[in-house]
């Protein structure tokens, strides 16, 4: 063991070398989520573009499909395990895993541990994954230290309101990151959503199992969105946005719906 105190020269040389080498780029694997992959690929494209703009080396492990959350939430843990193992296989080697969804992110970060509680090997892998998983906006602020992401597109200001999805808020505990990024996005004026932290009523299969309750919650969320006066409503979860956006489109409301990544990517509403 060299003693640092006794080898000042070596220490100086070492320091100089560090200064000379560029920091290696941060590498992150995208877990795109099955909803984005199959129904809203454009959101995934925006995620990649924003990450690359921040200097991240993005890869997409192609073995991934679905994290298993819809099954897990319905009590089918045997089936959920199969998909979760597939996900672990796909993501085991990643430095960071970025998930553009609070809900799927919560599955990876929080619920895999419950799912694998009875299997030490899988639990160990789940725990290793837990520490590398970040929701997209959380990754930008907490890992990359991004504070401002000037929109890479039109600068015309538009009003945007942000719906904090429940799993992002109360499972992943991400509250500030998306709002901070939106606030600093340049092209955006963030306006307050009344009763923002009320669930929108999506809840995965809940939306079709109990549509009469889901629709009541949705109606209140739409009323809040209207009340905010925003031109665009955004969130970090395509599940909630499909539900909210599905009703906006049904009712022909003059509000556009975008994932936060699309706004940060400078997309127009």
């Amino acid at each position, binding site marked *: 063991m060299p003693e640092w105190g006794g080898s000042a020269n070596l220490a100086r040389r070492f320091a100089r070398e560090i200064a000379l080498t560029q920091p290696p780029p941060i590498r992150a694997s995208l877990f795109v989520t099955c909803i984005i992959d199959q129904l809203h690929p454009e959101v995934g494209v925006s995620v990649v573009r924003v990450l690359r703009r921040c200097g991240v080396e993005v890869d997409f492990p192609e073995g991934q499909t679905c994290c298993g959350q819809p099954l897990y939430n319905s009590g089918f843990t045997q089936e959920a395990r199969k998909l979760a193992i597939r996900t672990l296989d796909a993501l085991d080697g990643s430095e960071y895993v970025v998930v553009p969804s609070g809900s799927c992110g919560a599955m990876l970060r929080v619920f895999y541990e419950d799912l694998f509680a009875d299997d030490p090997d899988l639990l160990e892998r789940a725990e290793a994954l837990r520490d590398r998983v970040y929701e997209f906006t959380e990754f930008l602020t907490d890992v990359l230290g991004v504070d401002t992401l000037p929109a890479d597109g039109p600068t015309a200001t538009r009003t945007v309101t942000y719906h904090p999805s429940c799993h992002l808020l109360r499972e992943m505990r991400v509250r500030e990151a998306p709002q901070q990024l939106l606030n600093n996005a340049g092209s955006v004026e963030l306006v307050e959503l009344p009763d923002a932290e009320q669930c929108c009523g999506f809840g995965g299969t809940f939306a*079709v199992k109990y549509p009469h309750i889901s629709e009541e919650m949705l109606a209140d969320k739409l009323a809040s969105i209207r009340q905010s006066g925003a031109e665009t409503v955004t969130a970090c979860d395509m599940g909630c946005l499909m539900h909210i956006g599905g009703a906006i489109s049904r009712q022909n409301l003059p509000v556009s719906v975008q994932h936060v990544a699309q706004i940060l990517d400078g997309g127009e509403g």
Partner: protein
Amino acid sequence: MAEVATREFVPASQAAVRDEQLRQALRRAGSGFDGTRREAIAEVTEDVWEDWRQQARSIKEHTIAHLDYYLAMLERNVRAAGGQAHFARDAAQANAIVSEIARQQGVRTVTKSKSMVSEELGLNHVLEEQGIDVFETDLGEYIIQLAEETPSHLVAPALHKTRGQVAQLFAEQLGVPYSEDIEEMARIARVALRQKFLEADMGISGANFLVAETGSLVIITNEGNGRLCTSAPRIHVGLAGMEKVIPSLQDLAVFLRLLPRSATGQRITSYMSMVTGPRRADDEDGPEEFHLVIVDNGRSRLLQDPALRESLYCIRCGACLNVCPIYQRVGGHAYGWVYPGPIGSIVTPGLVGVAQAKDLPNASTLCGACRDACPVQINIPRMLLHLRRQQAESDDTNQRTVSDTDKALAQGFATVMSSPWLLRLGRLVGRALTAPLARSGKIRQTRLPLVSRWTRARDLPVPAGRSFRDRWRDELSKGGN
């Protein structure tokens, strides 16, 4: 035991969301309670609040883990103070104990303060069949007794009623002039009840806490009626679920900070009564006999299941109901039994059986608001998931209630997701099937089962022509976009 209507959750909740009066009542009460709760927390600061919650949680963890020990200590100390402790395995036994005491003592009139356990047991009914007059003295309980209804909230039993409905009820049932003034309504009830307090031979109360080291029963109210029930009649019967025991008075202090703030946003409750045994030789008043009935009625099943055990930490503050988006839309009665809302969706299946209450654990978006509000940090979403898992996978066929269709759908989904190739195939098939139904990429109407339950209020996107992974392979992986 109280009637169980938990199988009717779907029709009951469908009716509830269409009930305009209920909507009004829920809106006012829900936001009111939750607003004051948040203010009360802000006042002591989040950090302090978290400390208190943690303390309360540890006390409950410890006590429930050593429940047999503390119940034995409680029983010893109730007896040492001159009272009698009874253990009831189930509702029938608890009811039999109380009705036997009443019979032996020739009881004709009972006054009651609020007790959820007595609702759970269906005790009033049993006593009435015995020819005893039972009078609820908590204002909310009094209202629903007049209306012949059941409570719809843990703390505010008549929360489902608007002020106008109560005024109407009083005018009809008591022959008083119609008045929507709360003070006036409380006064009317007081006058109607005063005579009963004097007549009653037996007072029945619930218990917010049972203190093992002193053998005390603690009740917390805002009306003072509880105190009259426990001190004026010659017999006092306290009813409590066995999870209500806490070790010491020091522990009580922790809960006295949490309960009023969580329930109503009050810093301190208006009345706290501690009852330790019957009247002593030098007491001026108080009952001649004190009985404590400690009720199991399914709680030991919850205790045995490590995944559900923490539901016994509940102090019935109602905060989870006040923040629950489902409870706030459907009200308490839709849940079909005594304990509604998020905690009810755990406790009810536990006490009446999972198969009887299939919908309750599923009728939740798992939004987590309940867990954040709970003063003892009960992880309600996790327990809901556990109950869903039992429904889908339990070895016990009584508990495995999932339908074959749901099972097949789950397996189908798992298969499609089991490889990128099948997923691709699934998308293309899905697209081929749905694209003809769509206009500008959206499905507006369809008769397809399940899908139609989505599209009745929302458009649905058609699966993308090119998936993200296609675009990754073709463009993004090569640096383009």
